[in-house]
């Protein structure tokens, strides 16, 4: 399997408004292989979203090196190598559902027929066929997030970056969305996903590897291989192996939270 992301000694510090500096990420070394589903998990403020944004070239690291598809992240962004799904759906209010999915295709100069074809295909995949001409406000939160996933995948990137995409959804919807996401990941053959979450259950259920980050400065505390059999089904959540792995992630998180106290 080819390596698509390589991070060496990545660090990031922010300067806050009062002039002090916050050390968000410290010495991150991580490789991501083609087709992996990686979850970044950690307490709030551990820099997991920052790490995702560095991969996406939405912010620059303070030190260390990173390559995406063997290129600097800026080049990868300009080559449209990844799709990004934000915490809230970030749909444009003035566009209908289908026009929202077509947005990246418009920017990337796809023809009108290609745009329409791809957008309909993607909407069918996230099971929103028939909602093409609705406006975002006419959809529920879960449906909006599905549109945003369809939009991120419309131009068929090989890498999907997701920043707590289901954080705002209720537990039932979230579990259904988890299954949807796994199905999509399987359909999009060999696509890699980097998934930021603070739900242990979600991380274990979805991932092939879970990266546990410690809080301030964010360091990799532990990387846990999730060797649950594929494809994962709702029954997976009932297996002993699943319980065992969620406990391991919980202990990994707790170990580092205990030393810092539960001040988050």
């Amino acid at each position, binding site marked *: 399997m080819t390596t698509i992301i390589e991070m060496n000694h990545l660090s990031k510090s922010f300067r806050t408004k009062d002039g002090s500096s916050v050390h968000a990420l410290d010495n991150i070394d991580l490789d991501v292989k083609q087709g992996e589903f990686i979850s970044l998990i950690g307490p709030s403020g551990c820099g997991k979203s920052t790490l995702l944004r560095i991969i996406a070239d939405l912010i620059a690291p303070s030190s260390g090196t990173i390559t995406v598809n063997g290129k600097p992240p800026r080049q990868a962004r300009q080559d449209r190598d990844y799709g*990004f799904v934000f915490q809230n759906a970030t749909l444009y209010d003035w566009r209908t559902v289908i026009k929202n999915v077509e947005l990246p295709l418009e920017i990337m100069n796809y023809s009108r027929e290609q745009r329409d074809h791809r957008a309909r295909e993607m909407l069918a995949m996230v099971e929103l066929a028939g909602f093409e001409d609705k406006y975002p406000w006419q959809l529920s939160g879960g449906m909006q997030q599905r549109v945003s996933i369809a939009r991120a995948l419309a131009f068929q990137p090989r890498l999907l970056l997701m920043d707590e995409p289901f954080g705002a959804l209720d537990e039932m919807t979230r579990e259904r969305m988890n299954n949807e996401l796994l199905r999509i990941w399987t359909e999009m053959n060999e696509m890699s996903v980097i998934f930021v979450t603070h739900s242990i259950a979600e991380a274990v259920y979805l991932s092939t590897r879970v990266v546990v980050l410690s809080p301030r400065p964010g360091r990799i505390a532990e990387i846990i291989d999730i060797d649950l059999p594929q494809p994962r089904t709702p029954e997976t959540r009932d297996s002993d192996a699943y319980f065992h792995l969620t406990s391991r992630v919980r202990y990994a998180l707790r170990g580092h939270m205990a030393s810092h106290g539960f001040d988050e």
Partner: protein
Amino acid sequence: MADVVNDLKTTPQLLRTHRLVIAPVLGADQSLGRDGVAILLLFLIAATWHIQNPLLQFETQFGSAFRNATLQPVIVMLLALSAAIWVGKPASWRENPLKMGGVVIVIAYTLYMVVAILFRVNIVGALLNIDAAVFTERLTNETPRDGLALHMTITGIMAGVAALTVFIWWTPFLRLSLYIGALARSFAPLMVAVLVLISWEALIAIFQIEAFLLPRPSVIAAAFIETYPRLVSAGWNTFQNALWGFIFGCGAGILTGIFAARFTSFSRALLPVAIMVNAIPIIALAPIFNNWFGALNSTSKIAIVAVLAYFPTLISTIKGLTAVDTLSLELMRSYAATPLAIFRKLRLPNALPYIFAALKVATTLSMIAAIVSEYFGGSTAGLGYKIRDDAGLFKYPEAWASILMASLFGIMFYLAVSAVERALMRWHPSFREK
């Protein structure tokens, strides 16, 4: 389906026709927008018929309201516009011969009037052997009155058929429940308005306030009805200054706003100054503008309107273009979108609500500036001059009637901009249908 059949058995013939023939074409349109278009269209059909016939234009009061030469082409263009809106998308009538017939009649009448009034080619007049010059000149002893009367009857039948078509498709008699609902919703404000008018009338009678201090509403209404042809003409002249000033001022405001928002440092420097200048009562500069651009032409009026409309538009445009959600911007960055694409697909739609809020404020400012600037001299054909003149001659009911006409123009200006806003921003929360 069975429900529909049952329903039809018990409904009167008229309603059945409506449900089976008309409703499927027009759709179950429950908004009052269609009523607005229909009323406007009926009014414009009547107005164009009057403009087109010298006997009506010079000898009836309604006709003489449209004697202003620059108003006439605008009336025809409004007719074409509202006919186009009324006709709607071809898909809605191609399948239905009834609607098709209505569309043909209304389009034919509209085209006839566009040709006759805009291009001065009078087809019926030519067929009746009436000299084309007769239609554009005042009536004299040589005017062929019999020919014109025949012409009036023929065009009157055309206008009548067009109006009847519009009325049949409008079916206001089947929308009574809609109107009752609308009346019920606006009952409170209507009552307040009626109460204000009644107490105004009553208080003047009780305290015997002199008419030159404050005329009764009924007196103002009488003066308005008596002089409305002149008021329309004067109002139109003033409105033109307001409109051109609005177009130049708001156009320049939007363009500089776009330019300023493109260069953050420039807009940071410009915005506080613009906000400060906006706080100055610019209208006070009207006499100085008269000095700069000449008191007698309308340039000085248009200029002061433009300056007044410029600053709020500029400020709102900059705000709308820069107040963009961070995540929406990051989304664009993740697509490696060009600055032009970000502008067209994110910043501009995001700014539209801000820009239209400013434009609506600017309509009111423009009318104020256009009227007040006339107080300081210049053309004698405008409303501002008329208000000042009437007040100076103690003709206060006439002055109040002019103020009423100014309000009507102001309200229509505002509504027109609102309609454009509504058409461009159907997605916006304030226009979401329930």
